[in-house]
């Protein structure tokens, strides 16, 4: 058994928007005018963000997390592999988690297989390979037809893993990506292949596909009420159905935190960055204001029968994370946990206890949060929160999952 794994996730937001951005601009995604990009300010921004991730490695985080987004102010990583490449040279211990490459956006999945194999070699076997289908905004960014996104995604994911595990050359007789000569050079270092993580938002079909293949399921929701616990139970039930067994490292969640010396100081220090993140970065994604592009009838990637089920409980105009109006409401959403080391420890412990989750992917830098505050929060977390979380989770997991081989996942199945 191992303790909870603590990862530092960086989204790399564009932090230089004017104060009246929300008032003046309709969205932060897809069509947000790129005339707002300011080279005078942005020079050195990637360096600052890469340095923060390298600092996470120094502080002893279990890994660094990157993901792919296009044409938005929320995440400036159209190619997370480029940042990952830099991290292979700037970090020594932590896993490099890419969550993930958006497979339907790539014309040829072999490019992903190759780049991931290179990153695994360059990092001495530290890659965690995430595959994601992309959401609504990416549909519009790259003109990806929605209806067959899921089929395309799984064909690409399976082809990549096959190219890592099966000797080439072989022909892939696929529906979407037929290839005559699949013959990967280089191969990934980790054997039989790097861990594979797949994000989902509680769709039963995604859980089933993940379970079938023995991968790790990552819940992409940003809020953590009862839903997180339910997602864990649902996934555990799906694993059971596939003759497999749940353990905490088959599951991961995304959360944000800010740690300050006291509750009061924490809130004061992070509030500007938090509101920048909620009101600007989530506009077009997790806000009602303007047009939400992430999910809906215009990006019809789930079958009509699943849409009918979704609609039954759907309440039009319901509040999304970015619609919270005050600090108390935000606090209740359990999305961004802010406070002293004691407060943050208690609240995250509570979350782990209930959701039995072994992979915490934590966002520290929020919106336009200045470098020194992001670093201070990371350091306080690493020194004053992480030890207790590791200690208590190890105890909990050992009791709750006796005799479970936590390395059992796809790697062991092969």
């Amino acid at each position, binding site marked *: 058994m191992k303790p909870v794994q603590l990862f530092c996730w960086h989204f790399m937001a564009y932090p230089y928007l004017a104060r009246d951005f929300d008032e003046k601009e309709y969205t932060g995604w897809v069509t947000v005018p790129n005339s707002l990009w300011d080279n005078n300010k942005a020079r050195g921004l990637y360096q600052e963000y890469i340095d923060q991730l390298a600092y996470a490695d120094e502080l002893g985080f279990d890994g660094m997390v990157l993901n792919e987004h296009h044409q938005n102010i929320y995440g400036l990583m159209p190619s997370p592999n480029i940042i990952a490449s830099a991290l292979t040279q700037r970090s020594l211990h932590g896993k490099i988690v890419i969550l993930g490459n958006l497979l339907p956006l790539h014309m040829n999945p072999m490019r992903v297989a190759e780049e991931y194999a290179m990153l695994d070699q360059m990092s001495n076997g530290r890659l965690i390979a995430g595959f994601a289908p992309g959401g*609504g905004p990416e*549909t*519009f960014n790259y*003109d*990806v*037809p*929605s*209806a*067959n996104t899921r*089929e395309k995604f799984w064909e690409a994911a399976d082809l990549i893993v096959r190219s890592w595990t099966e000797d080439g050359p072989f022909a892939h007789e696929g529906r979407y990506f037929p290839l005559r000569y699949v013959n990967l050079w280089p191969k990934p270092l980790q054997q039989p292949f790097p861990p594979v993580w797949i994000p989902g938002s509680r769709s039963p079909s995604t859980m089933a596909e993940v379970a079938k293949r023995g991968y790790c399921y990552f819940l992409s929701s940003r809020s953590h009420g009862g839903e997180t616990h339910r997602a864990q139970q649902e996934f555990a039930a799906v694993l059971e159905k596939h003759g497999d067994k749940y353990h905490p490292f088959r599951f991961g969640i995304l959360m944000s935190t800010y740690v300050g010396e006291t509750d009061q100081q924490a809130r004061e220090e992070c509030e500007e960055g938090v509101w920048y993140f909620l009101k600007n970065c989530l506009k077009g994604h997790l806000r*009602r*204001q*303007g*047009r*939400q*592009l992430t999910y*809906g*009838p*215009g*990006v*019809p990637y789930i*079958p*009509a029968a699943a*849409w*009918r089920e979704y*609609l*039954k409980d*759907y*309440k*039009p*105009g*319901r509040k*999304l994370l970015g619609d919270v109006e005050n600090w108390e409401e935000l606090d209740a959403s359990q999305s961004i946990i802010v406070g002293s080391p004691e407060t943050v420890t208690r609240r995250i412990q509570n979350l782990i206890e209930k959701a039995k989750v072994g992979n915490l992917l934590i966002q520290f830098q929020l919106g336009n949060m200045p470098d020194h505050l992001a670093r201070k929060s990371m350091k306080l977390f690493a020194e004053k929160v992480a030890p207790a979380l590791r200690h208590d989770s190890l105890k909990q997991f050992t009791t709750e999952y006796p005799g479970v081989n936590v390395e059992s996942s796809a790697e062991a199945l092969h």
Partner: protein
Amino acid sequence: MSGRVIDVNGRKVWLLEHGTGAPLLYLHGFADVHSVKENWLPFHDKLAQHARVIAPAHPGCGQTDENKDIDVIEDVAFHYLEVLDALQLTQFDLVGSCVGGWIAAELAVRHPERIRKLVLIGASGLFVEGALIGDVFMMAQPEYGQSYASLRQMLFASADQANALEMFPDGKGDLEDEVRRYQMLRLSSRIGFKPPYFYNRPLRNRLHRITSPALVIWGEKDNFVPHSHGETYARSIPGTGELKVVPGAGHSVHVEKPEETAKLVLDFLAK
């Protein structure tokens, strides 16, 4: 309403039939039977007073099976060739609106001999430089969590007219209407999302193959498929007169001005 399921090469196709007389195949668009409403609209009732109107639901719409092999418009054209065979329709009038008009044009360039007369209403399908067809997918994502005003504005002359609000209400409408709207968007995303949007570049240079007389109808205020597309259809199909513009109507001419539109169609078919 009289509907039935037919078997087309192992797939289920749902269709409505109404009226007697010469067969008229109607292919639906967005604001239409099968893609919002389960039953006929007043426009179709008027046509059915003079013809046997047959309206199949597109693949994945209504009770018609979804077909995952559909990637491009040609796949839909071949689907309809099989529907025609199953219905034993050798000679018929063909009326298509919006995406249905695009499918009609694709059928007509392939099998001009089977079509007696062709009517295109606000048809997508053409690439016209500098006149992109609207992004109905983005407009289908609600604003402020529940407003479909910009979708209505794209599909009708104005966002707040009664028929637009009835077919595309804010918030959550009738569950089955919602599902039908979704099904139509899902089919459209297969054929109309890439290239952006709703066109087949070679179609324009194939239109000269159409041998039947043709009528092209457009709403005066079409905010989805620009007028120049109507003019291009009218100019490129040999047996076409002038583009018929219906004053005051938007893209969904047959919903917004059912009587005028039906009269234009019936007069043309009777000529």
